[in-house]
């Protein structure tokens, strides 16, 4: 870190456009799959979320520059996702195993 600017990755315009174009194509794919391909549940949701995760990875890695960045920042994002999954799991352990759904909810 002693020399200036050597660590700042500069993406080429071509790289950025490639990522953007991939995101556009994935958006079209997710719409077409959801509207015109009959996937039995729950795999329709699994497919939609998988495509969204690929898109999220591309944005985080190449638009937010995590791929070239200090690894600590990537760890922060991964920790956020882990704690989010923890929050959902623990909540679902309650809500999915109630005898009666709370009235009016």
């Amino acid at each position, binding site marked *: 870190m002693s020399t200036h600017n050597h660590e700042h990755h500069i993406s080429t315009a071509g790289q950025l456009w490639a990522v953007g174009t991939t*995101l556009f194509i994935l958006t079209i794919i997710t719409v077409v799959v959801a509207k015109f391909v009959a996937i039995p549940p729950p795999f329709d949701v699994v497919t939609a979320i998988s495509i969204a995760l690929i898109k999220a990875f591309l*944005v985080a890695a190449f638009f937010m520059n995590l791929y070239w960045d200090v690894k600590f*920042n990537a760890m*922060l994002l991964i920790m956020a996702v882990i704690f989010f999954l923890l929050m*959902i799991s623990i909540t679902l352990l309650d809500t999915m195993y109630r005898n009666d759904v709370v009235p009016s909810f």
Partner: protein
Amino acid sequence: MANHSTSHPTHVHHHFVDSDQQFDTAKLGMWVFLVNEILFFGGLFCAYIIYRAWYPELFQMAALELNTFWGAVNTVVLIGSSLTVAMAIRSAQKDQMKGLKINLLITIGLALVFMVIKGFEYAHKFELGIFPGEYYTYEGIDHPQAAIFFSIYYMLTGVHAVHVLIGIGLIYWIYLRAKKGEFSSEYYTPVEITGLYWHLVDLIWIFLFPLLYLIE
């Protein structure tokens, strides 16, 4: 490039060793804030997951009221704005101040397009009587808990839209600073950090779109 720890450029605050340390520190701070944002939206996504697990048929029926076409257009608009923000940062890194300003303006334009489309979507629902919570009066969905889907819809998209509005303000502020010539390849930290925020707004929408509009 010369080592700046001795020559201390004007943008470096006195408590930082050099420009790089200041840059990395600012970025780390922004990422900690983004973690907080993810968990903040996480609570709303959690509500979505619980209710979808409880009432899967409601989500299928209610999602038909949402217009997939405009949702997809807004997805493309937001991804496009993420691309222009990335291009803006690249311009700043390469000392292309004109490119920086143009890309920031395009980003603001795309964000406004997003808000206008969202506004039309909301207006259409309000006409039908689709309001959140107890104000819900729409008769078109045959389900006793129909209002719940739209309460979740309005919370998720509403909070997201507030983030878009804040983003527009931030990017305009960055644009004004760029106009004053405050940025260069040596110092573009605010551009980078505002960019991170904007990409997160895009990230959230990448999940909102399939979860709300694409339920079949």
